[in-house]
């Protein structure tokens, strides 16, 4: 017994100085303010996460007091995850998501708009493309919910060689698009006319928005009154439902763009993210399955597809309309100001030339800069995948310019309609389209349902 007491005593004596050292270490660390925060990104692909991780590692090597945990969140789950995290008091430090989602978060009063505005002003308001900032401006001028970081535009990509052979006009109007969709729809040959979203996901709304806007249909009028159940909107929904008859069977989302790469689709709505899949074999391979299914029609890469593909970014009916998404970086409100300042520091780093260009080069064509100086930077234009070379600087400049002219349901006559962003984040329109195209609900009933859901949001 005595022996045990003696050994215990000696151990305590030996450990005491060590605990002192440890405690001092902790004090020192606390004084220099080590902080850590989560960064939620919608770039869920493993190669993109690896690139962002490299940027994080570089930043944290330069700032050893800051540690950042990168978390991938599917864009369709971002709103729900953030809302539950807000309720649980576990919001991350920052996020990367579409501008509409960011505005919806801003409307929920969970964003640090002061910090975002401070960073934008630090970089210089005039350095940004004005259109991209406009999408993130709050109702009081000169303050912003989040920071625009990159963006893409969307349109109909189509087989220009098929169109030429059939003597059809490019899909730039309602009539020409529907005519071509019907013409190329040959299910017996496993060939389909067009891909528009019919699943209850964000992609469906991305396809629907330019169609509705080209018919002068909006969610709100300039006085902020919900006008979803207008005759123009009904026409747009009916037209969309008609187009959806010529898509591949069942509920479809962006993933069905694979059918186009396999030569089984004439047209599809897609963003400029598709540019590398069209041009580069190694990128397209993920969609072709040629390695495993050599007998599958269209399983091998078509090197001529890039030159046989046309792009119609503007849809015209009563008026022309385009669509695109600006992706934003936002800061959530924090109890600890040290976290906010660490996030600010990291965002500023992400805007530095090398970090910014590295980020954008993850998907040339898909990720386009919102800073004018980067767009014209030779380093940016010399992307490692050679997309600029494939499409030429003129085409790329057009795309970036298109980013500056994006229109959405949430800005009417220059006024911010916050509820429109919330409606978008809550995917009411995609759910309505799913009900019509997949569950066979009639247009009036589905629109009445959507209208009542939108009213709930507008009243909040």
């Amino acid at each position, binding site marked *: 017994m005595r022996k045990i007491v003696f050994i215990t005593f000696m151990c305590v004596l030996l450990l005491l100085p060590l605990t002192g050292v440890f405690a001092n270490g902790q004090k020192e660390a606390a004084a220099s303010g080590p902080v850590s925060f989560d960064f939620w990104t919608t770039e869920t692909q493993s190669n993109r996460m690896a690139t962002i991780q490299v940027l994080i590692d570089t930043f944290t090597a330069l700032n050893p007091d800051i540690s950042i945990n990168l978390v991938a969140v599917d864009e369709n789950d971002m709103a*729900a995850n953030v*809302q*539950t995290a*807000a*309720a649980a008091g576990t919001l991350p430090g920052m996020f990367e998501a579409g501008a509409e989602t960011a505005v919806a978060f801003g409307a*929920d*009063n*969970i964003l640090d708009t002061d910090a975002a505005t401070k960073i934008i002003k630090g970089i210089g308001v005039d350095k940004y493309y004005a259109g991209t900032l406009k999408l993130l401006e709050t109702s009081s001028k000169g303050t912003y919910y989040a920071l625009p970081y990159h963006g893409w535009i969307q349109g109909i990509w189509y087989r220009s060689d098929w169109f030429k052979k059939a003597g059809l006009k490019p899909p730039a109007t309602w009539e020409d698009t529907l005519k071509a969709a019907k013409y190329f729809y040959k*299910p017996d040959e*496993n060939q*389909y006319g067009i891909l528009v979203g019919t699943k*209850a996901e964000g992609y469906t709304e991305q396809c629907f928005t330019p169609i509705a806007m080209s018919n002068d249909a909006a969610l709100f009028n300039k006085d902020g009154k919900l006008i979803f159940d207008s005759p123009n909107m009904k026409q747009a929904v009916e037209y969309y439902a008609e187009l959806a008859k010529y898509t*591949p*069977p*069942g*509920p*479809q989302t962006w993933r*069905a763009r*694979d*059918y186009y790469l*396999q030569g*089984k689709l004439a047209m599809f709505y897609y963003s400029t993210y598709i540019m590398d899949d069209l041009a580069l074999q190694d990128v397209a391979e993920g969609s072709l*399955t040629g390695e495993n*299914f050599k007998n*599958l029609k269209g399983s091998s890469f078509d090197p001529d597809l890039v030159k046989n593909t046309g792009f119609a970014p503007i849809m015209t009916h009563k008026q022309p309309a385009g669509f695109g998404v600006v992706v934003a970086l936002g800061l959530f409100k924090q109890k600890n100001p040290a976290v906010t300042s660490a996030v600010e520091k990291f965002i500023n780093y992400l805007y530095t030339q090398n970090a910014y260009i590295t980020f954008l080069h993850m998907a040339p064509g898909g990720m386009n800069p919102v800073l004018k100086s980067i767009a014209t930077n030779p380093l940016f234009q010399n992307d490692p995948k050679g997309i600029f070379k494939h499409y030429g600087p003129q085409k790329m400049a057009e795309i970036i310019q298109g980013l500056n002219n994006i229109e959405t349901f949430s800005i009417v006559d220059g006024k911010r309609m916050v509820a429109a962003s919330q409606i978008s984040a*809550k*995917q*009411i329109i995609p*759910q309505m389209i799913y009900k019509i195209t*997949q*569950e066979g609900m009639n247009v009036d009933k589905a629109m009445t349902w959507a209208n009542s*859901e939108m009213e*709930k*949001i507008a009243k909040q």
Partner: protein
Amino acid sequence: METVRRLYPASLDRKAREEIFGWILILPALLIILSLILYPIFYNIYLSFFNVNLDGGNTYIGLDNYKDVVLDPFFWNSVITTILYVIFTTIGTTFMGLIVAMAMNKTFPLRWLVRSLILLPYVAPVISVVFAWQFIFDPVNGIFMDVTVNKLHLFADRFNLIGSPKAAVWVAILFSIWKNFPFSYLMILSRLQAIDKNLFEAAEIDGADSWQKFKAITFPEIYFVMGAIVLLRIIWNFNKFEEVFLLTRNVKVLSIYTYFKAFTGTMEMGQGAAIAVIQFSLLISFIFIYVKKVLKW
């Protein structure tokens, strides 16, 4: 013994000390059950009476959530889908398990290998088999459509079996039977192996045929195992989420309907909680009746 005595006052008798010791032993499990199961259940019941606002400040609305749920035709569609799903998957997995177990109870070459291979669907990760099924039934590139439409001409047009809201429930049922029958098979087989062979020999001497042997010996012997399997399968499939959700989001069984109600769109968490309470009550009532009537406890 010295240690045990030291834990309690000396005045306690042996029985009382053992009772306290028993409580100490089950305390960790009890705490886990209280914090991870009972607390969420009671909190869920509490939430079902409120209009839940994620920014804080829930509003008490009495039974309004229940009223909204019960008056919602989508809820009743979901109840019917769930009942359909549970009935067919339970019958399917049990019968399939029974037939395979009976077959595997016979002796034949390489039986050990076949017995192990049968377990594969059950042990394979659900996400990997879901991807395989989705690829098989892909309307444009899947082998199912290629064979049935192009090769055998069984159908005139290609269709999206997993995507179509009407057809998807049958694919989900088929998937569940295929994935889960090995569990029933394993349970039934282990019981079959324990049946005294003398009973069958005696029956044979009495001139009983295969069906009579099954009816008079096998079935009574495996009755309670099958009863327990059916009960477990009903409980599991009534609450099934991941298999159905990953395979197709179109089959709105109650758990998926609750998820959509609570976490997507306008996020009606109060109504989601109310549906969960209704689901829980339905299941508990069923279990009581089942345990009393079928398992005769």
